[in-house]
């Protein structure tokens, strides 16, 4: 038994440590997808190939892609199931909107407002992640999942009873569980279940891509750091990780808080993309949607999540004329994809078929031998 664990640690750990080149590849693909996607979509929009409806989805695509990447830090790299990512998104969105209104009262430079709002949003979401993370990270598996679900619902419910207003002099007004009296509608910032109103929309596609790049940068660097390897070794074998002196709680909390902060930033950009935003937008279904991006993109695969988020946001939009059957098809496809990729028999059959079609079966081996050859030639 101990033998097996040691083996699993050492092979996985070593692979992770030695895999420097693979990290470079992953980073290259992730940044490449983002930049190429940005250029293509911008070109499409400029030449009129992409319609207005789809252009309206550019920022949400970036937000969802960045959420998928940050959730991957918890689900893929830390190996914990989180069903409350939308909760952190909500914290970021509403605190970001509030800050943008307050700063916007005093100055007009949008990029500065946006950056400060996003930083504050990240900070608030990180605090939320810290508060919820400390008690729950001792829980295991499905219990952790249900607590994150509960957390998401609590946040959404709290947002329903929080009221913020900003009067003519720039004074902030706050009320809990009852509307603020004596101010005009245009002075309301956050109004309970109605949500944020009168937000100045500042988000655009460029900011979205910058957010994605930043998120990918943080997550990839974290994955490739000493801490990241500790987190992954705990994921692979908690007891073994503990036995070699890793502080399990500390590392799990680290992944959780960073992920929450990044989700807060994404939420802030999402919030600043709409003039009105209701808390119901951040319900359980949104958390699930982000989780679906992560799983369909491949758990732990950074660029897979980005592609899944982009496709699953664009496709339903493109098939809007089949509105009635759209979600039904989505559900069926989701079930079929899960069975197709996880069922052992079907998986091995698909792999066998793939290797028949694909002559590059031992891609990595060939590559390495090629590298050797070129190395020799160079020498």
């Amino acid at each position, binding site marked *: *038994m*101990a033998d097996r*664990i040691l083996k699993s640690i050492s092979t996985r750990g070593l692979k992770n440590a030695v895999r420097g080149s693979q990290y470079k590849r992953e980073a290259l693909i992730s940044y490449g997808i983002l930049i190429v996607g940005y250029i293509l979509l911008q070109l499409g929009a400029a030449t009129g190939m992409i319609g207005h409806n789809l252009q309206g989805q550019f920022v949400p695509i970036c937000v969802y892609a960045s959420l998928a990447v940050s959730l991957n830090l918890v*689900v893929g790299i830390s190996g914990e*199931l989180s069903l409350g990512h939308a909760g952190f998104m909500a914290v970021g969105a509403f605190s970001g909107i509030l800050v943008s209104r307050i700063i916007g009262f005093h100055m007009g430079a949008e990029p500065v407002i946006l950056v400060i709002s996003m930083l504050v949003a990240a900070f608030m979401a990180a605090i939320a992640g810290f508060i919820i993370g400390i*008690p*729950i990270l*001792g*829980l*295991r*598996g*499905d*219990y952790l*999942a*249900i*607590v994150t*679900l*509960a*957390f998401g*619902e*609590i946040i959404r*419910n*709290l947002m*329903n*009873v929080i009221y913020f207003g900003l009067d003519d002099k720039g004074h902030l007004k706050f009320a809990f*569980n009852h509307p603020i009296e004596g101010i005009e509608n245009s002075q309301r910032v956050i109004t*309970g*279940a109605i949500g944020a109103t009168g937000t100045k929309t500042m988000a655009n596609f460029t900011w979205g891509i910058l957010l994605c790049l930043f998120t990918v940068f943080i997550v990839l660097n974290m994955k490739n750091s000493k801490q990241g390897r500790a987190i992954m070794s705990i994921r692979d074998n*908690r*007891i*073994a990780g503990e036995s070699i002196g890793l502080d399990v709680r500390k590392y799990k909390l680290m992944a959780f808080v960073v992920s929450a902060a990044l989700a807060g930033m994404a939420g802030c950009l999402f919030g600043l993309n709409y003039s009105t935003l209701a808390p119901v937008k951040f319900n*359980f279904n949104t958390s*699930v949607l982000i*989780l*679906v991006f992560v*799983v369909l993109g491949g*758990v732990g695969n950074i660029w897979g999540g980005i592609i899944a988020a982009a496709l699953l946001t664009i496709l339903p939009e493109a098939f809007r004329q089949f509105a*009635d*059957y759209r*979600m*039904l098809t*989505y*559900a*069926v496809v*989701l*079930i079929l994809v*899960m*069975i197709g*990729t*996880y*069922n*052992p028999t*079907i998986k091995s059959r698909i792999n066998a078929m793939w290797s028949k079609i694909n002559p590059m079966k031992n891609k990595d081996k060939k590559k390495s031998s090629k590298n050797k050859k070129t190395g020799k030639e160079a020498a």
Partner: protein
Amino acid sequence: MNFLTNLISGLSLGSVYAIIALGYTMVYGISKMLNFAHGDVIMIGGYMSFIMSMYVGMNAWIALLVAIIVCTVLGITIERLAYRPLRGTGSLAVLITAIGVSYFLQNIALLIWGANPKMFTSLFKGMGALKLAGGQLTITPESLFTILANIAIMIGLTLFVSKTKAGKAMRAVSEDNGAAQLMGINVNQSISLTFAIGSGLAAVAGVLMLSAYPVLMPTTGAMPGIKAFTAAVFGGIGSIPGAMIGGLILGIIEIFSRAYISTELSDAIVFACLILVLLVKPTGLLGKKISEKV
């Protein structure tokens, strides 16, 4: 008196949660999966009962029976088609599949019955409310029968699981899948039976719930499903008495916080209580403590 009235409606709502939670907890116990589609089986049960009594003109009780049969078959089918191919592949894949099934059921209902809410007629229409203490305390027939049904189901299920052969087989499978198979127990059959019982109970819970809260929509089952799931975790997922206790406590907390604190915050309070309980007892009130071995 106000307190007693609230307590009774809390017990009644809690009984609904408890019956739904049974389905969650049994399925979790036997196949270690979070069946997020369970809430939508409730909704399908509600619609079946509604259609049968309103359009086909059946007696409400026969309509309930039809709903139970349809949900039982639905539960077995879902398990056979969606969950069985993924058995033993880790919880994430099954979870996402269950969510897919949940979307599927909701959208099927949306296509067939539309998004407009339907008003459900109570199963106990025409029965008078029970008046006690000189008319100060009224107990609606819905509350009374829901609580009684919960007690009956709980006793029946406990007897079934502890006394019958099929029940013992179910316990064996949930204890150790592989060993049960070696002892000659048909694991597939046991799991199918669990889904059948859970889904049948979901139909009962759906009709009872809709009798008290009569708005029927394709998303009707989602929130009670999540709450009942919370109840199952609260009581210790996998444990049948745990589901009952968890459900009742949750129902009472919800009604009391609605009555005395805030309607909007009642859900938040329910979920906060769950987090508090899990902090003190990480596997729920009656959950087994599983020690990890190397």
